[in-house]
């Protein structure tokens, strides 16, 4: 585990430029009317940027499998929090009784 490969300064600058370009792209796309796809594209770009930061700036790419698992586990539990909460909110309209919140 000691002899990690490390990203070079060149990689850092490449990631940086890519992040800035992606920011410009996502702002540009926001001015177009894509309907529901505005959200999809913006979040896809955000996730790409997040992955770049995680993998290269935070060196997750060069980290141990355990660290990678920790990150994946965190995202898994985050999905549980959001997903199971939504399982309530998304199905409230299905019931026949009057939903006071709706």
């Amino acid at each position, binding site marked *: *585990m*000691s002899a990690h490969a*490390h990203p070079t*300064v060149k990689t*850092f*600058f490449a*990631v*940086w430029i890519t*992040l*800035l370009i992606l*920011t*410009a792209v*996502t*702002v540009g*796309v*926001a*001015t*177009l*009317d*894509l309907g529901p796809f*505005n*959200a999809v594209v*913006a*979040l896809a*770009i*955000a996730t790409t*940027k*997040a992955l770049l*930061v*995680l993998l290269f*700036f*935070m060196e997750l790419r060069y*980290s141990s499998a*355990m*660290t990678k698992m*920790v*990150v994946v*586990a*965190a*995202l898994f*539990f*985050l999905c549980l*929090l*959001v997903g199971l*909460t*939504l399982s309530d*909110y*998304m199905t409230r309209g299905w019931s026949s009784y009057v939903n006071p*919140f*709706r």
Partner: protein
Amino acid sequence: MPDSTPAVHNLKHHFADLEQQKDSSTFAMWLFLVTEIMFFGGLFAAYLIYRLYYFNAWVAGSQTMEIKLGAINTAVLICSSLTMVLAVHSAKLGNRKLTSLFLILTLVLGFTFLGVKAVEYHGHWEHHEVPGANFHFEHEGNFDPNQVQIFFSLYFAMTGMHAFHMIIGGGLLLWLLISNLRGRFSTEYNTPVEMVGLYWHFVDLVWIYLFPLLYLISHHHNG
């Protein structure tokens, strides 16, 4: 503090070697970032639910955001992540001067971000968009203005928590800078720089999502 033997000096008694010590710190930092993910996760969950329920109000609220300022701030944070990564890199090479330089640059960029954020907050205050008694929202859409107030509540909670993390990050950078000027770091021992780096990038990560969610994705819908 004897500079000649930093490796021995920096090894805490309960570790076998510096590698074990560093591995432990790194692992602990990632676990801490897990807690941060869950912390912001609660806010993201609330955001998603209310966006689904009050979509029109969300669009109206989102359209009051200054995309230009948001984009500038995103760029500023990305640049600060670069300088942070370079600070870590220089610290690992043992280049004290460059480390200080990049730490200062990161600090300056961090404060730039907070300054721009303050300008935005001021604008919201002027436009009566801060939740509470002062809140007032004019619109033609078919929804309750209170729903826009919830948008702004979440906007302030999310960006406020983010800004709070930035301020803490600023404090940590200052501490690193002072330690670095005192010659605490070397090629063998630079873990604190690396740990603060992880934290700083995480704060950047949160903003990478906040920017599209609050500023961009509802920009083009009509409420």
